[in-house]
């Protein structure tokens, strides 16, 4: 696509949409939202970028290697947090009883591992959405 209006508007919109996605992820445990919704929003912005500026530029923003790392990294983070609970409290995914900091109810830093998990899920969903889109749209490299 070579339309200058679309390109400029996309450039303006994307940071705001990504900020909104990050806001939703970080506020997941104090207001409606969470990792899935926020991750999907950030994922759609990346898809929009790829659609407007082409596959090559999109690849630069979010490379294959990066998506692979965040792909397994999301689950890895989840399991490691669960294992910490297993070691400290004797049960997989122990939250506050596993020794995670409690924080102040209603603040961003609260809820033990919930914000960390939400960030992990957000990264995972983002990378999944963009890599699925890339897989579907990729030209056959023969």
């Amino acid at each position, binding site marked *: 696509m070579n339309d200058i209006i679309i390109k400029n508007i996309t450039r303006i919109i994307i940071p705001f949409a990504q900020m909104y996605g990050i806001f939703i992820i970080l506020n997941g445990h*104090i*207001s*409606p939202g*969470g990792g*899935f919704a926020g991750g999907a929003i950030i994922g759609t912005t990346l898809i929009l970028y790829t659609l407007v500026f082409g596959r090559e530029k999109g690849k630069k923003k979010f490379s294959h290697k990066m998506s692979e790392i965040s792909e397994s990294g999301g689950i890895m983070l989840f399991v490691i947090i669960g294992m910490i609970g297993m070691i400290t409290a004797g049960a997989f995914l122990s939250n506050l009883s596993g020794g995670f900091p409690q924080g102040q*109810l*209603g603040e961003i830093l609260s809820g033990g591992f919930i914000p960390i998990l939400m960030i992990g899920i957000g990264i995972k*969903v983002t990378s999944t959405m963009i890599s*699925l889109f890339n*897989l*579907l749209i990729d030209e056959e490299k023969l």
Partner: protein
Amino acid sequence: MNIIERILENINYIGAVALFLIGLRIVVLHSNLIKRIMGINIMGTGVFLFFVAIGNVSGGVVPIVGANPEGSTFVNPLPSVFILTGIVVVVSITVYSLSLVIRIYQNYNTIDQKELAELISEDNNEH
């Protein structure tokens, strides 16, 4: 009329069942493969609507502690949790079946179930 009142009371459940069955009809009877995947999505939303309707409490508020006035009743949070999981699962299945559709189109040059069946039976007869 009594019956209309009852329908109005249970409209969400009836809608959920209707959507489930419409989705099922599209999946089973429609011949276009992409439409069938959409049917799966419609079926899914039907089930999720059923779950949400179970969790709803009229006059209730969203279960966020501290954001609501004292004494207000919370809606049931558990169905929402189930659906959040369910939505993502249905998306994964959708994407996987879409990838299969791309491959089927590349191999048979059609995404219509009836034409596909003919092509496959021709293939089998050749061997």
